[in-house]
């Protein structure tokens, strides 16, 4: 071939490659604009930090309010509203340098006063915010200068940063706090990329783009969270193009959507662990051999494959693998013969009768899981009645104090809101939090574990702390106050137009990174 022709061909080939390259890469360049329709299954009753509502509200708050610190997808702490931080030598003073030039939705700039107002609100005894205990490790907040703030603690707090990453620890505008106090329900004035634009009670919440966001122009113009309670209707909306993202589908729908073209399904590990809790004060569950027997009687792999259709992972601790401090205890493989032996050793060679209470529709495949457990325990001689209870009654039953508590077995799923094992140690495992003081609804008590928990709270050195919490998990798994079942995975389905949606280790979807392709 002539030289000119060769060169010509090369140039042409090169152009084609470059063109193809830009076309492919153009897919990945975020586009601006559009309205995201995020359809959820529960109504949002409040957006006020410290108050309880459907866990999907964390996703909404993620767009509105920002914390001092946050975690990236690998779980590492990264600066958000604080650019740097340090701990004093005695471990009692945490100093944070605030980012400059951050604007609130109401226009004023972020200063240490806003941080102080936020935490003072959370700790205010007059407000009695239901979830405030997580931040009550902070004894006071001190303003050093405009952009420097200190959090003082009475004792060293090992998991301070995880607590500050918690979805309810976002920094609010001091003016909003002054005006609304505890009842900030529909005035979540923060520094996030989206600002609150109104709601129809129980039906929808609307967010709009905040043009003065310090992190640059947000991708979307508007985000609408619609509440549609019926699972099948949400799926239909996605398929008919009325929804861009849906969450919390039943297992069968997950499979169906995975097989549908034009729909992208994502399964992300969550911090929530499904379990059957024992009332450790009620015979025969006061006998550890019986509790261990129940654990050996469960075929967890079959449960995940059969009931959850693969949407979940086997659990080997009371926290999920994505939680800091997780230590898997390889103990309870499926051994029904050993289960029977243990029951016989405990004095129940012919098994016994008990009741398993469960909610329905509260957790992914909750009732189906209970029925499967009933079946598996039945195979080793334990006859269970499955009792479906509505949520309000269920909560009351679980938190009834010991002398009137009638629960024997119950199904539940606890998440670690801060992404750190300390959250559940304080909330659930410590014997100081038996009902009615707290949520140790297993009435579990192990003095060694209590001592280890107390020690772990103060260990600022992560290596030392991990050694202690690993020991705690060994002990707790062997004490078996739960039948450890599985770790939930959060299913979400979206159209292929939606990009950048991630489920974060803080149990929220990252609507701040979502963009819509045209």
């Amino acid at each position: 071939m002539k030289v000119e022709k060769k060169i010509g061909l090369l140039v042409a080939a090169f152009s084609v490659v470059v063109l193809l390259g830009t076309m492919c890469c153009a897919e990945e360049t975020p586009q601006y604009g559009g309205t995201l329709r995020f359809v959820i299954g529960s109504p949002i009753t409040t957006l006020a930090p410290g108050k309880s509502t459907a866990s999907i509200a964390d996703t909404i708050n993620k767009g509105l309010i920002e914390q001092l610190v946050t975690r990236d997808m690998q779980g590492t702490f990264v600066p958000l509203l604080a650019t740097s931080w340090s701990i004093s030598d005695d471990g009692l003073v945490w100093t944070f340098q605030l980012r400059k030039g951050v604007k609130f939705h109401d226009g004023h700039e972020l200063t240490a006063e806003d941080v102080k107002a936020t935490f003072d609100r959370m700790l205010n005894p007059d407000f009695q915010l239901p979830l405030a205990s997580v931040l009550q490790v902070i004894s006071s907040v001190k303003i050093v200068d405009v952009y420097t703030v200190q959090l003082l603690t009475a004792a060293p707090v090992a998991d301070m940063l995880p607590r500050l990453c918690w979805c309810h620890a976002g920094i609010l505008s001091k003016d909003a706090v002054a005006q609304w106090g505890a009842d900030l329900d529909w005035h979540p004035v923060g520094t996030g990329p989206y600002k609150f634009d109104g709601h129809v009670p129980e039906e929808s919440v609307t967010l709009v783009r905040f043009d003065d966001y310090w992190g640059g122009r947000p991708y979307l113009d508007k985000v609408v969270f619609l509440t549609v309670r019926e699972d099948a209707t949400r799926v239909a909306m996605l398929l008919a193009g009325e929804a861009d993202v849906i969450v919390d589908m039943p297992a069968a729908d997950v499979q169906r959507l995975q097989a549908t073209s034009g729909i992208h399904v994502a399964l992300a590990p969550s911090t929530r662990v499904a379990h059957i809790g024992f009332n450790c004060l009620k015979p025969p569950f006061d006998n550890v051999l019986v509790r261990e027997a129940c654990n050996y009687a469960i075929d967890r792999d079959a449960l995940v494959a059969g009931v959850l259709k693969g949407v979940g992972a086997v659990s080997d601790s009371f926290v999920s693998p994505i939680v800091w401090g997780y230590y898997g205890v390889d103990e309870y493989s499926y051994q029904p013969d050993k289960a029977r032996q243990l029951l016989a050793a405990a004095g129940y060679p012919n098994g016994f009768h008990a009741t398993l209470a469960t909610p329905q529709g509260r957790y992914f495949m909750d009732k189906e899981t209970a029925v499967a457990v009933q079946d598996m325990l039945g195979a080793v001689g334990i006859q269970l009645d499955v009792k479906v209870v509505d949520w309000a009654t269920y909560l009351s039953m679980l938190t009834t104090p010991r002398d009137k508590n009638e629960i024997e077995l119950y199904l539940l799923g606890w998440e670690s809101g801060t992404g750190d094992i300390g959250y559940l140690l304080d909330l659930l495992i410590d014997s100081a939090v038996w009902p009615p003081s707290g949520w140790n609804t297993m009435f579990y008590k192990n003095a060694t574990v209590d001592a280890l928990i107390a020690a772990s709270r103060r260990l600022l050195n992560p290596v030392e702390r991990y050694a202690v919490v690993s020991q705690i998990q060994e002990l707790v798994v062997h004490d078996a106050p739960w039948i450890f079942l599985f770790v939930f995975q959060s299913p979400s389905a979206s159209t292929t137009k939606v990009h950048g949606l991630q489920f974060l280790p803080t149990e929220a979807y990252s609507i701040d990174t979502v963009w819509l392709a045209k």
Partner: protein
Amino acid sequence: MLSFAVGRGLGLLVVLFVVSLVTFSLTYFVPGDVALVIAGPGSSAKSISAIRAKLHLDRPFHVRYAQWLGSLFSGDLGESAITKEPVGQMVGFRFLNTLELTGAGLGLAVILGMPMGVLAAIKRNSLLDYGTMVLSVFGISMPIFWIGLMLIYFFAVRLRVLPVTGQGGLRHLVLPAVTIGVNSVAIIARMTRSSMLEVLGSDYIRTAKAKGCSERQVIWLHALRNAMIPIITTIGMQLGYLMGGAVLTETVFAWSGIGRLFADSVFRRDFPVLQILVLLLAAVFALANFLVDLSYSLFDPRVRYD
């Protein structure tokens, strides 16, 4: 006539009072603590007591009931225990939405059901008759839930001619109205058919035919008018049934109406809202019955009210 109306009015007030008292007492017998539901899992014991105190749940029954009655008479319908919204606001637009839905459903049911029933009665034992009756069995037996989801699947997902959810406009009303109306079509058709058959066998119909009245006059002027009383009673009862059954249709189509609000309030133990809803529904039932009774005089001039 006036004394009839006044008597019924007083009766309604008594009914409402008793209903409100019974509903209020339920707060004592139903398990489940609204303060716990509001505070949520993971909440501190102190915060739960604080919520209980704020909602006055620690006060004795008669004090709370008297307080509630008092505020009701001064026009204050109370606040939702869960969302803190005024109950009037929560219920107001939802009631209108449900009325729109049940009105459309019932209207559809009457427009389709009555002619079906009349035709079935006229052409008795024909293919049309049997076909209508089979269809009506289908309509009575199929669960509302299933009908709704099937309609969504075919018309909204597959064919994309109608929307799945949403309100405001005829397009959004079609599927929900058909879903809620199917059951009533069947019942009204059957009642119309049996009532017509009874009337068609009467002497005066034979007389009318002998007189030389046209077929159309006989059916629509003479027979149907005489058959109307059981039919209108059924329609009136259907209104009550639809208001209650709206919760299923409203859940499937995400229609914000009082049916769903009712279900939610029960599950969340939101008693302030529940009280008002129960009163509202009792009043609607009573009013529907009253209007049905009044209408008798339209169809049968012999009926008097004294």
